[in-house]
């Protein structure tokens, strides 16, 4: 999985010298994937997490094939139906199939979360690497800026942005895009901080010196040599962050600040389920379980991955 895995570091290329570059590349890729899996199996936590994430992503991918009903089609003859063979998770107060709603809502939530975390990384990583690599004045100014952003209470920022989105009557795709932007932007300073501290250490290593001797330009060293070496802590944080982002999206839509009603959404569905909680508690169970499962998947995987990538913490 990762370049740092011990198995890959000591690999011996058994290729003939006249192989094409593509084949060499493929060969190495295969070896690192195999070594990655071997590493992954060493940590039970990350194996379970990886299995859960794989399941989650597969379900998201095949959602169109898995849904049994139209998630927004109301059916007043089957309001608040219990769990049955027809409706796996029962139906809500409008007679909509909860199973289908959980699936479709999940697809949307997971997509937004992944995009948001990726956006935060793309924004924060170069910022942090440059700050750590150049150091001195650049670093001081950049980090003060990051400190300022880090001190800003996240949920309040989301509330403001989501309120704005509502006032501008942004719906569907644009509303989701705003979420991706807001959640990603709030993650960026953390990434920058982390990348910077790794880059500070990496910038003093010999391979950087070697690259310099070879006449590589500074900016190229920063992005082609140092940046890849800063990835592992960021991947761990990003994985854990994915779980956190899912929670935030659910909380915002629970408050009624997510997408507008008929769209299936875990948080909004939970909020709607409160009206019928006394008589039909089951409608409040499945969206909640779905959130729990996804967040747990990313937390488990992130935990295990951190143990694997940082041997110092391994036995904790």
């Amino acid at each position, binding site marked *: 999985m990762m370049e740092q895995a011990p198995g890959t570091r000591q690999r011996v290329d058994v290729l003939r010298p006249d192989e094409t570059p593509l084949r060499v590349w493929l060969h190495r890729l295969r070896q690192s994937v195999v070594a990655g899996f071997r590493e992954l199996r060493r940590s039970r936590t990350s194996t379970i997490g990886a299995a859960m994430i794989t399941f989650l992503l597969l379900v998201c991918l095949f959602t169109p094939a898995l849904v049994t009903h139209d998630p927004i089609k109301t059916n007043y003859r089957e309001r608040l139906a219990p769990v049955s063979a027809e409706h796996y998770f029962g139906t809500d107060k409008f007679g909509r199939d909860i199973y289908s709603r959980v699936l479709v809502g999940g697809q949307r939530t997971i997509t937004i979360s992944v995009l948001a975390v990726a956006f935060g990384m793309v924004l924060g990583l170069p910022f942090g690497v440059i700050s750590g690599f150049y150091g001195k004045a650049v670093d001081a100014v950049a980090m003060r800026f990051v400190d300022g952003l880090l*001190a800003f209470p*996240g949920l309040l920022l989301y*509330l403001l942005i989501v309120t704005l989105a509502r*006032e501008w009557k942004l719906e569907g795709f644009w509303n989701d895009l705003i979420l991706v932007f807001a959640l990603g932007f709030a993650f960026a300073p953390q990434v920058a901080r982390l990348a910077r501290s790794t880059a500070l250490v990496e910038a003093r290593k010999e391979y950087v010196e070697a690259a310099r001797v070879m006449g590589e330009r500074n900016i190229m060293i920063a992005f082609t040599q140092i940046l890849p070496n800063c990835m592992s802590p960021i991947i761990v944080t990003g994985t854990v962050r994915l779980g956190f982002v899912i929670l935030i999206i659910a909380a915002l839509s*629970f408050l009624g600040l997510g997408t507008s009603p008929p769209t299936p959404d875990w948080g909004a569905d939970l909020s709607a389920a409160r009206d019928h909680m006394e008589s039909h508690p089951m409608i409040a169970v499945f969206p*909640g379980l779905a959130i729990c499962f996804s967040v747990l998947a990313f937390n488990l995987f992130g935990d295990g991955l951190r143990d694997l990538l940082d041997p110092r913490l391994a*036995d*904790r």
Partner: protein
Amino acid sequence: MLIYTINRLLQLIPVVLILTVVVFGFVQALPGDIIDSLGGQEAVEDPEVRAALEKEFGLDKPIYVQYARWVGKIATGDFGKSLITRRPVSVELLERIPATIYLALVGIGLSLVIAIPLGTIAAVRRNTKFDYGAQVTSLLGISIPEFWFAILCVLMFSLYFPILPSSGYVAPTEDFAKSLWYLVLPAVAVGFRQAAFTTRLTRSSMLDEISKEYVDTARSLGLPEWKVIYKYTLRNALIPTITISGLQLAALLGGTVVLETIFAWPGIGLTIYQAIQLRDYPVIQSGVLILGVMVVAINLMIDLLYRVLNPRVQLG
């Protein structure tokens, strides 16, 4: 220490500046005319009234002058008037702050009472059933959305076993026993998630301390194990725990919006939520600003306290 304190206070300036710009920008970014947003329903048609209002709000001036005047007003405690109740926003918000602080403090206190023993025992009895149990529980705790947990608690203790009130608030100054009664469920909902965080943290910092050399020294001197653990190790291990709990307290002030909504807890979070529903922009604006400043101030205090508690930390 004095220089460090001054330094940190100076660092607050950009943070607060960013806060004010974001909050000011929020109202500017609202769609439509600001007079329509700030002036409520009436006084939109008549051009003379419009002109008068524009003058009153200072909208005839360029935007940076408006910003400067707004900051100037805020510095003197004038946050404007609520569009709904027509009362000064500062009064409206200040009377809501104690409830939020009350809930956050009790929640954090509860989490520490649970988490410190749990984390310590888990670390001391590492890799036993107890340890695994604590780890799994805390992992679940950070993966469960708090609003879902809160709903389930209400379902359990207010509906199935009606022993606790599902929502409401009584000030502790009014009737202390009754106020505790209403506090139980919200505090448990806050405390559970926090306890999960803190348990993980206590466990890992405890493991960190146990592996240090002074522990071996203490043991080789023949000190009883409980004394080594509870008198020497735990004290050091608690420094990060307490620090993070302090930071969590700050984060909670801005993060209890969801729980306050569920439990109808009349704190500042609920106020902001209601203001968002009613489009009461001055209240949203000032509420976020006040909460933000509080969060930043508490963070600073915790940071300074940390340096006092742990003189080994380098100042700078």
